[in-house]
């Protein structure tokens, strides 16, 4: 069972493997820097874990939990 970005804890790092999205939604996340191969770190979670702030390519970007669940990652220990 592969992990998604939403499964990670604050401070944890992971590498993006795939985006389970198509069309404009996929493009939108890639424009924000979430491309396969990119390293991401969880910097902050709001109450109830939504939204979640990530450090990606030198910039903090917040995603809705529902979006983060579609980004498949491999945790980096």
């Amino acid at each position, binding site marked *: 069972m592969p992990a998604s970005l939403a499964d990670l804890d604050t401070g944890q790092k992971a590498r993006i493997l795939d985006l389970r999205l198509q*069309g*404009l939604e996929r*493009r*939108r996340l890639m*424009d*924000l*820097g979430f491309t396969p191969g990119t390293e991401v770190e969880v910097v902050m979670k709001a109450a109830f874990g939504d939204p979640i702030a990530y450090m990606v*390519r*030198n*910039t903090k970007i917040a995603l809705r939990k529902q979006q983060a669940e579609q980004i498949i990652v491999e945790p980096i220990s």
Partner: protein
Amino acid sequence: MAGCQCTQAAGCPTVSGNFTRLGINIDNYDFLIALAGNPNTGKTTLFNALSGLRQHTGNWPGKTVVRSEGAFRHHEYKYKVVDLPGTYSLLSTSEDEEIARDFILFGNLDCVVVVVDATALERNLNLVLQVLEITDRVVVALNLMDEAERKGLYVDARKLSRELGVPVVPMVAREGKGIDQLLQTVEDVVTGRLSTRPRRIDLDPQIEEAVQQLLPHLKNLYPHLSNHRWLAMRLLEGDRSIEDAIRNDALADPETGSTVPADEEIPELEAALEV
């Protein structure tokens, strides 16, 4: 030289030669330029240095959602400059993106200055490539070169320029460094002395064929626009905002009014709108 009105701690950016900040005196300009780029790359800092106005800089909650306008004179030309909202893309999935995109697409710009963060090029070049799909009158302002140096990063501006096919000017906007060269480069582009060869991504042959089928119809419908290829690509991608703009006649020439005859059907266009 006009009195400098900025109050930044770093002092007044110095610009030599025949340069005057004109504030909001934007009537009768010769050329229209816009500052585009990701958030926090120094667009407003550059805008203030050029116009003498004092728009908010830095990370503040209000953000630039509306565009600010100002003017300056350099050599014999008067320029109107527009500070666009910061965006990571021109897909128009937010209000900011829509403002920036519509202005780049339909604003009749003489030049787009894309301000990029030299410390985060990989992220910033995504927007540069999107702007290059729309227009070839582009100058890249490679800003925050002081930060890059502090982090031990060396960016080869000449090589970057060769790869992008448009001029790249290294800058430290907060200290006014590079503004002289930026203005000279912008002048070369707007006057046509310098022609660019923007790097564009090759399309899959099948998609290219579909684009070619749409092109003549879009050219016919919107002779006043210059970015038919970009429109065709967005239609094939299923971009709702462009589909709506075509259905609602929002792309029609304001001078001549409606361009889509109500009773005329264009099968290729209809097909693209159906996808």
